[in-house]
């Protein structure tokens, strides 16, 4: 397997008033293509900051971040935006669907960043909705769907442009156990059958079991790693 991500000596800190708060100090890690990684850790351990760095929504102060063999840490804001659109699908804890758009319109959003024709966009949306099993809900608005269905729509939105990488920020944090298991099962299918690399931040040990391996973060360092059962 080739490395999809390679982080070398990454440093990240914030300044609050006169105080400098260090999140990562020389963090080094690798994530292989096709991996499904759960990242766990207490609040403030740097989970979301790591996800921001991996997703190109934040920049490191120092160090190198390579994606698919190319550095992304030195890209400009605009280049990072384009990179995200082409390579990353995001799945949020609270789904983050646009309430006034239908399911299909929500799923179509990332495709508006491409040069695809409207017809091709419609076809891709239909395919994505079929993968998550909600093709019959295409014209429904988020408020007309359950939490689990909304998260499936969010997953369809994340995969519709066929990115290599899915970044999930507490994807089951707002769902009951049964629904959470369904969503995690869907993520497993995307990883196993479609080869998507998935990095999932979670507090839920049960959820982490769906990943191939779990990384534990504490105060900006990985303290242990384990393979899923």
């Amino acid at each position, binding site marked *: 397997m080739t490395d999809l991500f390679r982080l070398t000596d990454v440093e990240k800190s914030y300044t609050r008033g006169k105080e400098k708060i260090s999140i990562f100090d020389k963090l080094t890690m690798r994530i292989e293509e096709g991996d499904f990684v759960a990242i766990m850790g207490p609040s403030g351990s740097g989970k979301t900051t790591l996800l921001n760095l991996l997703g190109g929504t934040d920049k490191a102060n120092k160090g190198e971040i390579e994606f698919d063999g190319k550095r992304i840490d030195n890209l400009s804001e605009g280049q990072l935006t384009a990179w995200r659109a082409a390579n990353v699908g995001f799945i949020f804890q609270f789904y983050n669907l646009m309430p006034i758009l239908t399911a299909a319109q929500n799923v179509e959003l990332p495709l508006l*960043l491409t040069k695809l024709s409207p017809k091709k966009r419609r076809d891709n949306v239909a395919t994505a909705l079929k993968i998550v099993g909600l093709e019959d809900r295409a014209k429904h608005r988020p408020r007309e769907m359950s939490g689990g269905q909304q998260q499936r729509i969010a997953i369809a939105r994340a995969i519709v442009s066929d990115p290599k990488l899915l970044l999930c920020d507490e994807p089951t944090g707002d769902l009951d156990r049964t629904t959470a298991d369904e969503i995690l099962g869907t993520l497993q299918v995307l990883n196993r059958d479609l080869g998507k690399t998935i990095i999932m931040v979670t507090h839920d040990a049960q959820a982490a079991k769906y990943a191939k391996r779990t990384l534990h973060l504490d105060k900006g360092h990985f303290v242990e790693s384990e393979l899923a059962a």
Partner: protein
Amino acid sequence: MASLLNQIGAVTALNVRSIPQRAWMSIASIVAVALTIAVLLFFLALAQGLTRTVEGSGSDDVAMVIRSGSNAELNSVVSRDQLTILSSGPGVMQRASRPLASGELLVIVDGLKRSTNTKANMPFRGIGAEGLALRRGVTITQGRMFSPGSNEIVVGAGLIREFAGFGFGETVRIRGSDWKIVGVFEAPGTVFESELWADVAVTQSLFNRPNAYQTMRVQLASPEAVAPFKTWADADPRLQGLEILSERAYYARQASQSNQFIVIAWVLGILMAIGALAGAVNTMYSSVATRSAEIATLRIIGFSGWAAFFGTMVEALALSMMGGILGILIAFVAFNGRTTSTLGSGFTQLVFKFDLSPPIVITAIVMAMVIGFVGGFFPGIRAARQRPQLELAAQ
């Protein structure tokens, strides 16, 4: 480029379609813009109506003779001898072997305004036998012209609309004399519709102004004949101290009064626009704040800051446009075409109509757009600068 247009279209549609979620704030912003536009239009239409009425009153081929330095007819004097000399000037048209000229006397009389039930000045004009012929746009629509040498008057239709007690057939008492109203005339869009007309000789007699004239109107062969007529008069020592200009030029000069209304329109309009602007900015900042998770989500997905900026701008412009259209509708319903009156240059009431012409309406739309543009610009920048971070998307 196509992608950016797609992004802008999508974000704009999101913003505009979510306006109902911020209904009250949006309505307040729309109403503020609407009131601003309505007030601006009120004064601009007032100024436009006044200008059109005054400027539209004169003819190019009628020479107007007044005393030099007189700003208005009331403080002008032309003697009977001068009248006689001027009647024989070059280019003066004849009718039935008589010069087509009219010596006129304007006096002020009281009338009761219908709208306020208070007294106001009305212009009472004594005109010569050819006075009606010199005013080509004037038609007697009811009754007949007054008979020379009689206590009869004809009344402008505009004056009847504004003042009580001057209906056709009525007898009115003015300065101790009874006058019979024998006719009503119309002269659309001119100052004449605000006047009472009577025989100049009777007017001189009953107002105790014997042989006094203030102005003279002379029908010339063509507009080009005004200059030679003036040159001729300037060369005659008996006509020194008189100013000769075309009737249209005279009224154009009088129209400068309407500039005051234009100044008031813009001062008030701009002051109110600042208020409306504050409302628009507030609404748009609120819009950006309530959509911060949406904006962050779109930015994370890969939408550019430009899309967020333009989306906010278009929302602001849409709200302002709605306010502008509402303001224009209010103006059309409330006062377009309505008759009003103001104190004219002769200290008399001048009746005219509010005139919402297309250029004025376009001015109002531009004003609304300016409010929208400025109101959306800074919130748009805030939206564009919002960082695409997961913490913001989770709020």
